[in-house]
Structures are given as structure tokens and as C-alpha cells.
């Protein structure tokens, strides 16, 4: 009898844990289904080609336009710029903290960086509006500082702590014996870092970059506040752009339920999801390529 109750107890606990694990899968599936269901009516009516239209004019009396290309290019432009700013900076900072800074210095750097990671994006948005945008305006001699570059600077600020923290862990996990081998062959500190430590930590660094960029792609609030939100196709950093995330966030609240516009916003969500999905796939590929085994 006691044995049987033991058995059922073990079973029960197992199922409880399984339910917890299954919930996350269920939610992902539900999100996919829901996004799919809400975006199908738009695709059915306007066709897939509508996504690549060049004009986003969802509210108009004569001719509504749901071309998402400006939003997609806007997101890509801001993300690319942010990546270009954040990745070198983050990796170099991580190398410094992991390999060059003294133990006492590290005690200061690490909490400060974690603090930076904890700043709410709205607060960073304020900082962008009040400090970065005017600065960008001055430096580039523009009429407005609300543009892709300003947005990218803020996004870089958000990605950098992630990149630094995870890269630094990866770099510090490189066995001391590799570095000793390098030094014993007459390599300098810098040679050892570039030719041994960083390559050995590369999979972790790539993961750090991907997580950082992932945060950038999905970020909404700060970019909405500082990019100017003009839905135009441009690849100039000093022009206003409108990202996909900002579009959904800004327009969802006012859109008539069930309208074309409403469904179009869900299509944006699907495109965004596919983009991050693709990014993850690329990251996995890169990781596999560099993972040495």
C-alpha cells in the first residue's frame, strides 16, 4: 500500500513538472496560432505582395496603403546601425574587463554594467530625447535629431550590457592553460587575446551578440520616442524612420477592431517573428561552425 502511494506521488510530481514545461511550449504555439489567425484575413484580401508595398498609409479617406517595406527597412536600418555601434564596443569592453582590468576594477565595472542593463527603456528614451537627439542634431547639423542614428545609439546602449556580460563570462571561461601555452611561446598579451582567448570564447561571444541584437530587434519604446516615426524607405542614418515594433505599439490602440489596418498590424507581428526566427537560425549556424569538437 505504502509502495503504491509512493509510486503515485512520484507520478504526480513528474506530471506537475511536465505541465510547467509544457506551458511554455503551449504559449509559443498559441502565439503562433493567434498571430496567424489574425493576419490571414489581410493576406487573403490584399495578397502577400502587399507586404512589400512602398507606402504605409493605413488611415486615409481615399486610398489606404499597407506597404510594409518602409517599416521593414526602418527596423533593419536601426538594427544594423545599433549592431555596428554595440558589437565592437561591447566585445572590446568585455575583453578589457575579463583580461586586463584588475580584480578591484572588475568589482566596479560589473555592477555598473548590470545597472545599465536594468534601466527601463522608457527612461532611456527620455535620455535619448533630452540628451542624444540634440547632440546628434548639433554634430550632424540637422534640423531634427529624431532619426535612425539616435535610435541606434539608444538601442546600442541597451545591447551593450548584454554583450559585455555574456562575452565577459565566455572569455573568462577560457582555460588558463591555453593562455599559458601562448605566453610560453613568446606571445604578447594582445596576441594571446586575439589569437587564442577570443577564438576560444567565440561561441559565447556570438551568443552574446545574438542576444544583444535580439533585444535590439524587438525593442519598441525607446525607438518609438527618438526615431521620428516617418514611414519612408531610406538607408540614411540621419533620416527619420519608423520601425515595425513602433508601428504596432503606436497604432494598435486606435485601430478599429477587425479592420484591414488591424489585421495588417498582425502581419507586421508575423514578419517580425520570422525575422527574429531567422536571426536565431543564423546564430545557431554560426555557433555550430565555430564550435570545435
Amino acid at each position, binding site marked *: 500500500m505504502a509502495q503504491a502511494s509512493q509510486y503515485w506521488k512520484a507520478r504526480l510530481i513528474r506530471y506537475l513538472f511536465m505541465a510547467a514545461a509544457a506551458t511554455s511550449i503551449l504559449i509559443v504555439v498559441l502565439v503562433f496560432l493567434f498571430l496567424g489567425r489574425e493576419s490571414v484575413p489581410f493576406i487573403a484580401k490584399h495578397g502577400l505582395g502587399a507586404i512589400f508595398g512602398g507606402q504605409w498609409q493605413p488611415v486615409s479617406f481615399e486610398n489606404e496603403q499597407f506597404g510594409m517595406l518602409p517599416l521593414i527597412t526602418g527596423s533593419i536600418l536601426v538594427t544594423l546601425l545599433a549592431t555596428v555601434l554595440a558589437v565592437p564596443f561591447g566585445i572590446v569592453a568585455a575583453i578589457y574587463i575579463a583580461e586586463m582590468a584588475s580584480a578591484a576594477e572588475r568589482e566596479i565595472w560589473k555592477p555598473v554594467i548590470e545597472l545599465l542593463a536594468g534601466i527601463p527603456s522608457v527612461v532611456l528614451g527620455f535620455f535619448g530625447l533630452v540628451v542624444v537627439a540634440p547632440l546628434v542634431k548639433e554634430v550632424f547639423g540637422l534640423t531634427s535629431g529624431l532619426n535612425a542614428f539616435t535610435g541606434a545609439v539608444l538601442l546600442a546602449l541597451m545591447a551593450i550590457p548584454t554583450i559585455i556580460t555574456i562575452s565577459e563570462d565566455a572569455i573568462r571561461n577560457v582555460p588558463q592553460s591555453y593562455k599559458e601555452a*601562448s605566453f610560453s*611561446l613568446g606571445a604578447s598579451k594582445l596576441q594571446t587575446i586575439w589569437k587564442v582567448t577570443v577564438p576560444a570564447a567565440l561561441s559565447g561571444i556570438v551568443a552574446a551578440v545574438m542576444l544583444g541584437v535580439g533585444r535590439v530587434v524587438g525593442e519598441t519604446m525607446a525607438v518609438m520616442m527618438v526615431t521620428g516615426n516617418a514611414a519612408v524607405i531610406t538607408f540614411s542614418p540621419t533620416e527619420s524612420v519608423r520601425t515595425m515594433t513602433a508601428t504596432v505599439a503606436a497604432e494598435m490602440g486606435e485601430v478599429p477592431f477587425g479592420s484591414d489596418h488591424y489585421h495588417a498590424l498582425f502581419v507586421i507581428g508575423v514578419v517580425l517573428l520570422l525575422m527574429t526566427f531567422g536571426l536565431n537560425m543564423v546564430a545557431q549556424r554560426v555557433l555550430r561552425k565555430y564550435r570545435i569538437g
Partner: protein
Amino acid sequence: MTDHSAHISAKHLNFFYGATQALHDVSVDLKRSRVTAFIGPSGCGKSTFLRTLNRMNDIIDDTRVEGQVLVDGLDVYSGACNVIDLRRKIGMVFQKSNPFPKSIFDNIAYGSRIHGEKSRRVLEEVVERSLRRSGLWDEVKDRLDHNAMGLSGGQQQRLCIARALAVNPEVLLMDEPASALDPRSTARIEDLISELRGDYTIVIVTHNMQQAARVSDETAFFYEGKLIEVGVTKQIFTNPTEKQTEDYITGRFG
């Protein structure tokens, strides 16, 4: 007649980890083209002493050296010594084999590359020569592009020896190079040391006294951070001068 003058001389060397003194007034001459074995119980300072010779202790925080280490008459702790040239001249093999997570070729070519060699042809020559020297060539010549981590423990250690030889050192420091290997691999490493004997000044730290007796010309016995006795291996093992050396060799402690 081979020159067996002092290649490396330590003079009144003291070494500290923080406040702990690990070496006490060590003075010794290590002879050119000879194999010198350092023996002694764990923690006796033999590895620490070995690492002072190519300044590998520099990379450990909070350490301090007093006294001199002369390599070819030049004090390695003086401002006149370039640590990069020093380590080029004095190769090192570690207790745990530590190939880089790169291909076999890139492991061996690493030293030449960091010292500026770019020609693929020259690098290929260096790789082949070094691998032949360490007796690994026939085993790996068809898979030089494979990752070195895929080799067996004994092969990895011979790869590390080849990597050290690739930069043409004059001295080879070996810190218990066979302690993590099985008996067969150990025998191969010992054979390799015998083959290299005469061409390089070799210093080997070992826990294994039979190994010291087999491979070395001279033996130095360390105990509690002090150099107790140094002399011709045969004499140390058959007729040591110091009581402590005799006790250790006959297995009374250690």
C-alpha cells in the same frame, strides 16, 4: 666535445606568492645540452622554480622575485631582458597537455605566426620538422587540418612538445610532462626526451624518481622551497650527500 657550461644560473633566488615565501635562496647552475631533473615532494617549489626560469610566474598576480636568474649570462629579471625573446628561447611543456582548440597545423604554426612568419611554405616546413622531431608526424600527417583536441592524451602532449620545438628554443622546460599519461604514453615521452637530449638544454620536473633516474644527467632535490642537493643523477641516486635526499629517494617520506 659538447659544451656543458652553465646555460641557466639561479643566484640566491627567493620567490613569494603574496606573503608566502615559496623559494628560499636557490642557487644552481643548469648545464647546457644536459637533462636536469627536479625532484621533491609536492609543494616543494620545484615547479615554481621552473616557472621563474622563463618568467611564467609573471602572469600570476601578487608574486615577487628576489635574486637573479641568468640565461646565457643575462639576468632575466633585469630591464635589459625582453620577456618575449626569453620565452622564445626557453620553450615550456606543461603538466596537463594544453593544445589550442585549433587544427594540428595551426597549433604547431602558432609560434612562428606570432613571430611574424606568413609564408605558407615555411610554415609547412616548420610543422613537418617539428612533428617529425616529436615523433608524431606519421600518426597525424594525413589529418593536419583536424582539431588537435581529437588526439589522445599522449599525442596531445607530444603535439605540445612539437609546438614548443617549432620556435627553435635552446631550452625546454617540462613540468611533469608525463604525470597525466598512461605508462605507454609515458614511455614514448621519455624516449622523446632521450632523443632530444644533447640538442637542447632540458629541465624536467617529475614526481617519478625512476623517470628522473632514466632520463636525466643531473638531478636537483628540492624540499620546502630549498634546493637541498644537486649533482650527477647517478651519484644523487646511489650516494647522496644529504640525509634528506637519501630519505626521500629511499621512500622514507614524500
